[in-house]
């Protein structure tokens, strides 16, 4: 077992532990923190695939912005009802077990598929060598983004503008908190 393999299994275990934590924990804030663990571990997996810039972006945007939003919003609410609802009751318990079952099925399916794909490839080297190193380097990334996908890039700016306007408009809609009448 090489160091790369050990690193991959360790990170994969962290990702799945975080994901299971999201589903199985009773306190919603603990679930959100489990999701933070998942995001950070996914950033680490990006590093093993040598996509360094993408790992940094994953940390800055996902783990540092989106999840902060989640945790902040969860703290705005009174969560006693939520915690009680998920700690007892048979329907809730069945839902929990069902979701874990679906997740396990996905994992087993991924394993089976990886085994089949591995046999088809004929065990071709370690994980890092199958990844294209050109994806992570900054210069090809920038060239790809700005030459091949310029239109999508500008459209993304417009999309972000729409999100900003929409959020403010939602909070000002009738019955919202910033209602203007």
């Amino acid at each position, binding site marked *: 077992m090489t160091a790369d393999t050990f690193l991959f299994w360790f990170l994969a275990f962290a990702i799945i532990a975080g994901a299971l934590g999201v589903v199985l924990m009773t306190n919603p804030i603990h679930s959100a923190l489990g999701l933070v663990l998942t995001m950070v571990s996914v*950033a680490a997996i990006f590093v093993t695939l040598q996509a360094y810039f993408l790992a940094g972006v994953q*940390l800055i945007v996902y783990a540092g912005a989106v999840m902060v939003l989640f*945790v902040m919003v969860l703290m705005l609410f009174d969560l006693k009802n939520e915690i009680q609802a998920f700690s007892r009751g048979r329907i809730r318990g069945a839902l929990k077990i069902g979701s874990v079952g679906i997740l396990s099925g996905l994992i087993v399916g991924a394993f089976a598929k990886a085994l089949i794909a591995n046999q088809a490839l004929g065990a071709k080297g370690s994980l890092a060598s199958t990844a294209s190193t050109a994806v992570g380097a900054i210069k090809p990334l920038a060239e790809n983004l700005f030459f091949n996908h310029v239109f999508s890039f500008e459209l993304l700016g417009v999309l972000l503008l729409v999100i900003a306007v929409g959020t403010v408009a939602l909070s000002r809609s009738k019955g919202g908190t910033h209602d203007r009448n």
Partner: protein
Amino acid sequence: MTSMGTTGFEITVNLIKTVLVFLMMVQAVPILVWLERRGSAFIQNRFGPNRVGPLGLVQLLADAVKFLTKEDFVPEKGSRFMFYAAPVFALIPAAIAYMAIPMSVPLKLEGATFLIQGFEVNVGIVFVLGVSSLAAYTILMAGWGSGSKYSLMGAMRASAQIISYELALGLSIVGVILIYGTFNLTDMINAQHGALSFSMFGYTVSSAYLPNWGIFYQPIGMILFFAATFAESNRLPFDLAEGEAELVAGFHTEYGGFKMLMFFIGEYGHMMIASGLMATFFFGGYSIWNFTPQQVYEWLYGLVGSELLANILNTVVHFLSYNLKFAIFLWIFIWVRWTLPRFRYDQLMDIGWKTMLPWALANAMLTATLIFAGSYFIF
């Protein structure tokens, strides 16, 4: 274990180096607290702690011993796990981000080259920004784990302040990246060696006396970056999070003893990252005025004669130069804290969104325009 070294010896030395940098960060806190207490006393025209040990230097050791005898207290209403996890988590982002900052010329012994930093990251600044943005979770976990609405309010306000100023921080760095064309901190420092010289519009400007430091290229960026890092580490004038008389002590009201000390290690850690980045971006990192490391090495070689000794002395001299700049910025942090009054919360958010963000954007656009025009319109 990608790129932590190839031989077992190298890997061990590199791992020990990371532990050493972390312990260095923890050990700098007593010195900084002493500096803060004596410095603030000096500014406020009174004595600071001067009884324990010479000049009061042993004060924080005595404080640490006192903390050891405090009871371990968890408020009843809070969440036990998060109450304990928050101070430990406070140390992690600050330590990891500080390890990416190069502190001296790489030490070239026969056979191996050792970098004088925790580890080398080739997307330097993106990594440092990403890891520092995890500091918002410390505050949220501490505020929630205390179970008190005052702590929670303090935590929400502090995290809203941190994320607002992260924008200004990220944008003020874009100008620096435009000029040096890389994310890597070591490459940025290498580009700042030697005397000032750049070419624009076909003319070459150079000076024999001024160094090639970033401050001459990005003065506005430097001011914006410095101000944004004040807000990032919750220092005055942006320290609404611990505003006494407003929210008692904000998100760390319910903490005492060693757990509170760990929060302060985290806060001083962020101050150290800010000082280190200021030195790296705008003041040449470890370089000494306008001498390149090669010139210093040759002078030392002429002085000492042995290559090994000259290499080691070169590293040490540059390390001292970095530490001098580092200490100056830390002192400026402390100086500003005890000089300026605190901002009101709405003033603080206004400055972050309405003043610093547009200025940082204007700085980035101006830099890009000047670089573009300087290369295309050659007279």
